[in-house]
């Protein structure tokens, strides 16, 4: 037996089988596409939220607000403590005047209101850029508490908690996506199994004849198994196409609304690896469905 030719025959028969039951096949492919599309949406949301969190974390600096009467020696001691902590990459002093200038640049409309106040209401500060990995270090909290206890320090501001909470939300979204995806993929596998079973019923006579003429079992069941795999693969590819269209549509919407906040959240499509996993997931669901349907007892 020539294996290449036999496989070509299997593929040919699998495609012919799907074509003969094309209406049910289309329903099956659409169902798996819908399932994977939803999974993809979750993953897309998680990917972009994760990106936002990473950006925020990279951009987050610890701001140490100084008391108005803090002397130079205290400020220098503060900087030495920070650099010696192995959590800080760089320190940067921001004078009260510099802080006022930043405010004016960021909130131009409110500059006049700030001007009505007596004196400069903006405190001087020291900004600390954290080293990569410092945010998740157990030493960070004691370090910040130590800074806050310094007599030169009015307040230490670091929004690590909301960054952590946001990361938790991202993890939850991703986990929900995987859970929903698993559930929906199993449903899709069940649908594929039914489609394959229907195809088997349509080909009952052929199967009987093939058995009688001594066709090997693998060649009898192979087209049905392959049919399931093809449905899953097509479902995965269609889902990926729908996701790409949806993503482009969203980008277009964001661009047209000129909403800066939305622009922050919609920045990138799924990575090639995640795209591959999505299509592979569909293929595996198809394989599962095909395997269930073409077990020896059913064919």
């Amino acid at each position, binding site marked *: 037996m020539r294996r290449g*030719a036999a496989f070509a*025959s299997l593929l040919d028969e699998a495609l012919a089988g799907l074509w003969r039951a094309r209406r049910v096949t289309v329903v099956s492919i659409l169902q798996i596409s819908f399932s994977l599309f939803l999974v993809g949406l979750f993953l897309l949301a998680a990917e972009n939220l994760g990106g936002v969190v990473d950006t925020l974390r990279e951009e987050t600096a610890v701001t140490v607000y100084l008391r108005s009467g803090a002397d130079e020696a205290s400020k220098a001691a503060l900087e030495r403590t920070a650099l010696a902590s192995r959590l800080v990459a760089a320190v940067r002093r921001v004078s009260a005047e510099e802080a006022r200038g930043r405010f004016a640049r960021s909130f131009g409309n409110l500059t006049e209101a700030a001007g009505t106040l007596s004196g400069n209401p903006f405190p001087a500060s020291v900004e600390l850029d954290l080293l990569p990995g410092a945010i998740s270090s157990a030493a960070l909290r004691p370090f910040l508490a130590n800074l806050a206890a310094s007599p030169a320090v009015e307040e230490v501001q670091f929004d690590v908690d909301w960054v952590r909470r946001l990361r938790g939300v991202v993890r939850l979204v991703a986990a929900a996506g995987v859970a929903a995806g698993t559930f929906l993929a199993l449903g899709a596998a069940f649908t594929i199994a039914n489609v394959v079973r229907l195809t088997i019923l349509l080909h009952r006579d052929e199967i009987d*004849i093939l058995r009688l003429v001594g*066709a090997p079992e693998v060649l009898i069941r192979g087209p049905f198994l392959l049919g399931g795999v093809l449905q899953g693969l097509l479902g995965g590819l269609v889902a990926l196409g729908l996701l790409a269209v949806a993503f482009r549509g969203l980008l277009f919407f964001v661009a047209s609304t000129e909403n800066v906040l939305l622009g922050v959240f919609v920045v990138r499509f799924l990575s090639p690896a995640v795209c591959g996993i999505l299509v592979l997931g569909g293929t595996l669901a198809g394989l599962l469905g095909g395997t269930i349907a073409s077990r020896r007892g059913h064919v």
Partner: protein
Amino acid sequence: MIEFYRVSKEYHGRRVLKNLSFQIAQGEFVFLTGPSGAGKTTVLKLLYRAEGPGEGQILVNGRNVGAMSPGRVPELRRTMGIVFQDYKLLPSRTVFENVSFVLKFLGVPLAERRRRAYHVLRMVELHHRANALPEELSGGEQQRVALARALVNEPELLIADEPTGNLDHRLAQEVMRLFSQINVRGTTVLVATHDVNLIRETGRRCLTLDRGGVLEGLVEAALPPQASWRRESGVKLPPREEETR
């Protein structure tokens, strides 16, 4: 080629075959006959292992069919061609596809499939109908397609279960002529039929199953008077139809 040794078979407590023994040599053309329910189809099913024997031993080309594992059955069947009374053709496939799809599943390339299908269709004189669907053919033509399908894999043994049951006498004779041709080429042929006239006309060795569906022994009947084995068995044959009138 085929050896049955004290084979018995029961269906739901009803004994269909009892201590059945016979042999068929390589290259023989043998009829298996008997009344309805005598166990003709059962004997054939035992041969291609659609059924397992209750007791006894069945050898096909030296292989013990009864003891064969299910995984070896396809290999056994590839040495046989099987023809059914109801043809078992695939209605949605053309004559060519019906004949060649078995080869397709066995991985035979298209050019070789075409060559072999054309060869057997020519043998049964249906090569000009290769693109027709089964419903466009007469009963005799459909049976010839079924025969072509059975022959396309060049079997050592051809088994036919009531192949002329749905055909008129002229078409039945035509099909028998084809069986004879195939047998001349060296293929062993076993045909189950209850058509005594056909057996008589074909003039081949005949095995008869009897005793109201329960076989207790095998009666070998020679239909043509010149056959030596008829003289040995001394079995009286049913008279020809015209003789009864």
